[in-house]
């Protein structure tokens, strides 16, 4: 049995971690949160230089042609360090949509730019404050143009390539739109996590091209992305656990380190349990993604639910362990608390993923 990342993959993880620490990624997330910029352009260009955006893109389209296991370890470190860049939108969603559903000419026109960072992709899916379904998506495609409005599009204000879900009259699929096309109105939206920019996008007879896809492909894209988002959530969860422990060890109350109180120790043990369950499930997701296993829908939902739970548990209890200091703007706890919400919202709610998980198990095991 070899259910572990290889030595090379662990080395890549270590490189990513040290790079993001050296570049003070968490501090940069705070700067984006407090400043005017939508993302940290300098960190983004360094991430591109490191080759991270090209990781899973095939070599014939300008990528490195490594695998998804490599992308998973990078994702974990980006999550740990709250990297304020459009990485997840561009790599886990837009690049994946084109790799999996693009035709040869779409791959040739878009993938080299996404690999080199010249293009930034975003996924425009949500329309209202309810979970998008094939029945309720009202964005429409006909005669080569797309119309309708998408909201809460992560990186929508900085992307130049959009992957949009729309109905062509016979069902919902994925469409490609360039931000320079006619009839696009992009409006930045304020969010609970300003370290990651979001926008609403209105399309009005906007020229678009079809990616060969239907609703099941939309779901499959979300499954693939879910594994990678889960690794970001795992990294964030572990960072919160480490912060909480570090703070508790040095904080004294009643004449002793608060880390010696069982109330705090058991809280940390609960975080550890959540992180270990999430990590093990994430490895399962990584295996399924990297081998294109038929179990992918189950594995993706499992790691998504587990990692969302772990990050939620750890980010809120990290604030709690810090006491009043955890509630201050000055401490970093809230950066993780915000990012936890952003990642949980980005590709659909916990209840939906739980429902998907049971649905996939029902399908896998028909009576």
């Amino acid at each position, binding site marked *: *049995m070899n259910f572990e990342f290889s030595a090379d993959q662990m080395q890549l993880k270590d490189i990513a971690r040290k790079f993001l620490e050296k570049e003070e990624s968490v501090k940069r997330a705070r700067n984006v949160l407090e400043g005017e910029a939508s993302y940290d352009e300098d960190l983004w260009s360094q991430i591109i230089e490191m080759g991270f955006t090209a990781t899973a893109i095939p070599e014939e389209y300008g990528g490195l042609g490594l695998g998804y296991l490599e992308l998973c370890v990078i994702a974990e470190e980006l999550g740990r360090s709250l990297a304020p860049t459009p990485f997840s939108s561009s790599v886990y969603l837009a690049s994946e949509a084109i790799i999996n559903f693009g035709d040869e000419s779409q791959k040739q026109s878009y993938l080299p730019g996404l690999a080199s960072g010249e293009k930034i992709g975003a996924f425009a899916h949500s329309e209202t404050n309810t979970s998008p379904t094939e029945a309720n998506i009202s964005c429409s495609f006909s005669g080569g143009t797309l119309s309708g409005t998408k909201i809460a599009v992560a990186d929508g204000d900085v992307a130049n390539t959009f992957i949009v879900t729309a109905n062509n009259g016979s069902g919902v699929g994925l469409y490609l739109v360039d931000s320079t096309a006619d009839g696009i109105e992009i409006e930045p939206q304020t969010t609970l996590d300003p370290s990651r920019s979001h926008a609403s996008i209105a399309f009005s007879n906007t020229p678009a091209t079809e990616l060969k896809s239907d609703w099941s492909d939309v779901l499959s894209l979300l499954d693939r992305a879910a594994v990678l988002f889960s690794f970001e959530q795992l990294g964030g969860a572990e960072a919160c656990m480490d912060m909480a422990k570090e703070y508790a060890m040095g904080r004294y109350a009643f004449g002793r380190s608060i880390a010696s109180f069982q109330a*705090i120790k058991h809280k940390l043990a609960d975080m550890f349990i959540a992180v*270990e369950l999430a990590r093990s499930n994430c490895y399962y997701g990584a295996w399924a993604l*990297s081998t294109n296993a038929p179990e992918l829908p189950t594995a993706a939902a499992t790691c998504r639910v587990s990692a969302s739970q772990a990050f939620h548990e750890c980010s809120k209890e990290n604030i709690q362990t810090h006491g009043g200091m955890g509630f201050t703007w000055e401490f970093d706890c809230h950066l993780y608390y915000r990012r936890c919400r952003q990642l949980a919202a980005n590709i659909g709610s916990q209840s939906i993923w739980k429902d998907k998980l049971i649905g996939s198990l029902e399908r896998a095991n028909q009576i």
Partner: protein
Amino acid sequence: MDFNDTPEEAKFRKEAYEWLASNAELKEGPKDSWRASSEEEGLKQVKVWQKKLHEGGWACLHWPKTYGGRESTPIERVIWGQEVSKFKVPGGYLEIGQGMAGPVMMMYATEEQKERYLPPLATGEEIWCQLFSEPAAGSDVAGIKTKAELDGDTWTINGQKVWTSGAHFSDYGILVTRSDPSAPKHKGLTFFFVDMKSPGIEVKPIKQISGGANFNEVYFTDVKIPDSQRLGAVGDGWKVSLTTLMNERLAVGDASGPDFEEAFSLARGQDLNGKLAIENDSVREKLADWYCQQSGLKYAKYRNISALSRGETPGPQSSITKIVSGNKLQEIANFGLDMLDSAGILRTDEEGAEQSMYQYGFYGAAGIRIAGGTDEILKNIISEQVLGMPQDMRADKGLPFNEIPTGNK
């Protein structure tokens, strides 16, 4: 990343499977298992099977060959466990002897004693029990009071042990006692092994909340033990105990009982408010949580096995198994009974009835969350030994044992 054996592992697996296939019966399904009609019958069958294992070279896999073992690597033990679980073979009765008493004898007994006592453990001829917990010493097991007094080269033991599995059919036991009540708690302990047929030992079954009796109280009244049966130095009993406590924490693993599959299949067949239970959103949400916990434990185990396969020490992920599975079992048992609505209160003893599985879980989970380290003690272990957090402040630290405050429970 894959789930495949190395060539050596595949070879070992094949050898194990082939031996099992020609000596035991394959299970008909994953839930098919060996069951004995009575404890007496079970013990008899276990001894016969263990003798067969020993003759085939499959007893006490990691023990030295001299004492009846096979000198297998940790990964070979895991593979053996996976293969043996496919067969309907007798189990139980021997774990404490082979898993806890054996290792402590190997570390502290004389060569002559090892040659006398270890081989019958491997062949299943002799059964051992562990005499640690006391009425006033559970989680704080170092707080035991059973008195050991030395006169010449004979010790006299007086006191009471509790929660002793299998004491009533054991031949020998490992015993921790207090030899110096004026020393601090952890310093005044001394460790022995004892012949369970010694005069002055009285074994009484404990009736559990389930009505069953799997454990005992063991009373010691002027029991004589020769000093030659002392393991470790006088006053070093805590150090010796830790050897077996570590083994116990590894041995008490997954809680057995209804799991996700059973709850899932129940929900797909059970009516709830005019629809199938599986169509109820609150049911789906619970099932998803249990699936994620079960899957997390499964893949944590695979990570452990992978570490063993590489010849490395597994990470701390195994320390979460019992906490997660014990609590999951308790919730699933409650769910299974809740699905029966008002009828969920009715007791059935019918063998194999779905309801009885959840009833068993209802009682069993309450015990599993306590046995072999309570949830709370395990969380202390995780926070102290895995995360490196400090110990709680102790009111009894450094005090002579006989000056430590005691309550009335």
